[in-house]
C-alpha cells in the first residue's frame, strides 16, 4: 500500500506538462534511435544527455527524458530487425530470426504489431517488478557500510561480463583499466594530482559523458567505414501495424514467459537486454517449437525476444537506482547522468529525493502507453526512416555528439578527448575487449575508492575490516561463484571450437 501512495506521488511529478512533453519526446527520439541500425541504446542515451544539460532540466525531468529514450530504443530496435534483417541495436538481434521471415512472407504488419504488443507486455511487467522490488532492495542496502559497498563493487566488476562475455580475462582487464582511468584527476581527499601530467584540463578527471560518447558514438563511424556500402536495401512500405486478436492471443504465453526471463536477466549484474532476449528466444523455442516453425516466421519467435529485451531494460534499472550499481551499458550511462547532476543513486536516493525516483517510475508506465501508441498506428513513419542513407545520418550523429559534448564545458579540449576515446573504442572493439566495463570503471571508480578508504580509516588501516561482516563475505562468495561459472563456460566454449 505504501508503494501505491509513492506511485501516486510519482504520477503528480510525471504528469506535469513539461515532464509529460519530455516523456513523449523521449519516446519518439528513442524509437528513432533504436530503429536506425548502428545507433544502439547506449549511443542514443549518451548523445541526448548533453541535450538535457543544455535545456537546463531539473534532475527529475532529465532522468524522465532519458529513461523514456531508453525504453524507446528497446521498442525501436525491432523495426529494422523485421524490415531489413539488420538489428537496430544489439538486443534486437534475436528478433531478426523470425521477424524478417514474417516480413518476407508479407506479414510485416503482423510482425510489427505482435512485437509492439510484446514490447509493451515485457516493459510493463518489468516496470511493475521495478516498482515492487526496488524498495525491497533498498531496505537491504540501507544496512550497507563502506566495506559492504566495496564488496558490492567487486561483485559488479567481476561479473560484468556475465556468462556471455567473450573472454573473461579481457573483461576483467577492461574493468581494471576503466577504474584506473577513473583515478585520473585531483584526489578528492588529499588534493593530490594523480596522472594529470600537469595538464590543467585533466584536474577534474575524464568527464564520463565525454568518454562514453567517444567510446560508443565516435568509434561507430570508424567501424562503419570499414565496410561502407552506401545505402540500405529498400524496406517494404508498411503504414500501420495490425494483427488479429487471435494471433496476439496465441503469442500471449510467449510474451509472459519472455518477460519473466528478461526481467531476471536484467536485474542480474552484467547480463542486460541482449542476454534477456537471447534466453527468452531459446526458452520459447524449447517450449513451443513443436512443428519446427521457429526461424521461418513464427509469431511466438518474435514475441518472446521482444518481451525479453524490454523486460530486461526495466529490470536493469533496479540495481542502478537502489544500489547505484548499473547492470548494463545503458543504465551505466543513466548513472553518468545522475552523477553529473550531483545525485548519488542508492538507498538514500529513495529517502531524500522521492520525486526523482517515483517520478521516474511513474513516467515509465506512461512511456509504455505512449510507445505502444507510437509503435502500432504510427509505425509507418519509423519504417520510412530506415531509407535514410548513412552518409547523411552518421555525420549528423557525429556533429550532434560534438555539440553536446562542447555544451558541457564549452571546451574544445573535451572534443579532442572525445575523439581520443573514439579511437580507443574502435581499437578495443576490434580486439573484442568490451567497452562497458571501462565505462563502469570510469563511473564508479571514485565511489569504490571512497568506500575502500572509508572502510580502512574506520579500522585504522587494518584490511580485515573488508571481510568482517556476513553481507560482505556473502558478496565475495557470490563473486567467486559467478566468476567460476564464467571461467568454466569460457573454457567449454574454447574446447568446442
Amino acid at each position, binding site marked *: 500500500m505504501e508503494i501505491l501512495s509513492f506511485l501516486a506521488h510519482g504520477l503528480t511529478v510525471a504528469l506535469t506538462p513539461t515532464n509529460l512533453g519530455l516523456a513523449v519526446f523521449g519516446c519518439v527520439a528513442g524509437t528513432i534511435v533504436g530503429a536506425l541500425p548502428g545507433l544502439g541504446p547506449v549511443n542514443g542515451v549518451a548523445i541526448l544527455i548533453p541535450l538535457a544539460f543544455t535545456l537546463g532540466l531539473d534532475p527529475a525531468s532529465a532522468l524522465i527524458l532519458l529513461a523514456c529514450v531508453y525504453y524507446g530504443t528497446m521498442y525501436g530496435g525491432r523495426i529494422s530487425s523485421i524490415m531489413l534483417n539488420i538489428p537496430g541495436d544489439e538486443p534486437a538481434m534475436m528478433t531478426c530470426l523470425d521477424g524478417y521471415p514474417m516480413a518476407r512472407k508479407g506479414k510485416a504488419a503482423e510482425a510489427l504489431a505482435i512485437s509492439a504488443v510484446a514490447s509493451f507486455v515485457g516493459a510493463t511487467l518489468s516496470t511493475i517488478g521495478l516498482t515492487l522490488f526496488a524498495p525491497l532492495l533498498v531496505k537491504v542496502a540501507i544496512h550497507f557500510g563502506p566495506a559492504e559497498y566495496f564488496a558490492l563493487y567487486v561483485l559488479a566488476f567481476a561479473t560484468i561480463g556475465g556468462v556471455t562475455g567473450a573472454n573473461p580475462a579481457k573483461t576483467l582487464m577492461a574493468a581494471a583499466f576503466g577504474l584506473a582511468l577513473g583515478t585520473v584527476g585531483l584526489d578528492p581527499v588529499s588534493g593530490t594530482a594523480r596522472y594529470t601530467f600537469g595538464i590543467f584540463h585533466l584536474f577534474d578527471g575524464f568527464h564520463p559523458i565525454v568518454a562514453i560518447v567517444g567510446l560508443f558514438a565516435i568509434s561507430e*563511424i570508424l567501424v562503419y*567505414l570499414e565496410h*561502407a556500402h552506401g545505402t540500405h536495401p529498400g524496406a517494404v512500405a508498411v503504414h500501420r501495424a495490425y494483427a488479429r486478436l487471435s494471433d496476439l492471443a496465441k503469442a500471449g504465453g510467449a510474451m509472459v514467459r519472455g518477460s519473466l526471463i528478461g526481467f531476471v536477466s536484467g536485474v542480474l549484474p552484467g547480463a542486460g537486454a541482449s542476454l534477456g532476449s537471447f534466453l527468452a528466444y531459446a526458452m520459447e523455442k524449447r517450449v513451443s517449437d513443436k512443428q519446427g516453425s521457429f526461424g521461418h516466421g513464427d509469431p511466438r519467435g518474435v514475441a518472446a525476444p521482444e518481451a525479453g529485451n524490454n523486460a530486461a531494460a526495466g529490470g536493469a534499472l533496479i540495481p542502478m537506482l537502489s544500489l547505484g550499481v548499473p547492470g548494463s551499458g545503458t543504465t551505466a550511462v543513466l548513472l553518468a547522468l545522475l552523477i553529473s547532476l550531483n545525485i548519488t543513486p542508492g538507498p538514500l536516493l529513495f529517502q531524500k529525493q522521492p520525486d526523482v525516483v517515483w517520478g521516474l517510475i511513474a513516467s515509465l508506465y506512461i512511456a509504455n502507453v505512449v510507445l505502444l501508441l507510437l509503435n502500432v498506428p504510427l509505425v509507418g513513419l519509423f519504417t520510412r526512416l530506415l531509407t535514410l542513407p548513412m552518409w*547523411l545520418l552518421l555525420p549528423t550523429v557525429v556533429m550532434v555528439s560534438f555539440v553536446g559534448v562542447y555544451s558541457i564545458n564549452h571546451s574544445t579540449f573535451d572534443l579532442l578527448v572525445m575523439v581520443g576515446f573514439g*579511437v580507443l573504442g574502435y581499437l578495443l572493439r576490434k580486439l573484442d575487449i568490451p567497452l562497458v566495463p571501462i565505462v563502469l570503471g570510469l563511473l564508479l571508480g571514485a565511489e569504490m575508492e571512497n568506500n575502500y578508504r572509508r572502510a580502512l580509516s574506520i579500522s585504522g588501516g587494518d584490511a580485515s575490516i573488508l571481510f568482517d561482516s556476513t553481507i560482505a563475505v556473502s558478496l565475495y562468495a557470490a563473486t567467486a561463484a559467478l566468476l567460476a561459472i564464467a571461467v568454466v563456460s569460457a573454457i567449454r566454449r574454447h574446447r568446442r571450437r
Partner: protein
Amino acid sequence: MSDRLTGLLIAALAIWYGWTANNFEEGFGDPVGPSAFPKLLAVPMGLFALYLVIRPDADPDWPRGNPLIRQGVMLAALVVYPLILEPLGFPLATALAIFIMAVLLRGTRRAAGVAAVAISLGLFVTFDQILGLHLPMLPSLQ
C-alpha cells in the same frame, strides 16, 4: 599477435601506473592515502594483461587499403574540427566537417554539399538560437 601486443602495452601501463602511485604525497591523518587504490588496481590490470600475452585470441581482421585510408581521413577530420571550431565559427567549421564525412561515406559531392550547409545551419539554429547554448559564431561577427 594483436592480443599479445595489447597485453604487453597494458602490462607496461599497469607497471607505470602502480609505480607512479608511490610518489603521491600522503595526506595528514589519512591512513590509506591516495596511492593505495591505484596500487591495488595495478595488480589485476597487469596480471590479466600478461594472461593475454600468454593466451591470446585469434587476430581480428584489421582494415587495409581503401577503408584504412578512409578511416585515416575521417580521423584527421575529427581531430581538425575541434581545432578550427572556435577560429572559424560553428556554422563554417561544421559544414566543412559534414561535407568531408559525407563524401567519405560515399555521398555524392553535390548532395554532401547541400546536406552540409543545411545540417550545420539547422544545428546552429536549434542549439544556439532556440536552446540558448552559445556556440562560436563567425569570427568577424563576434
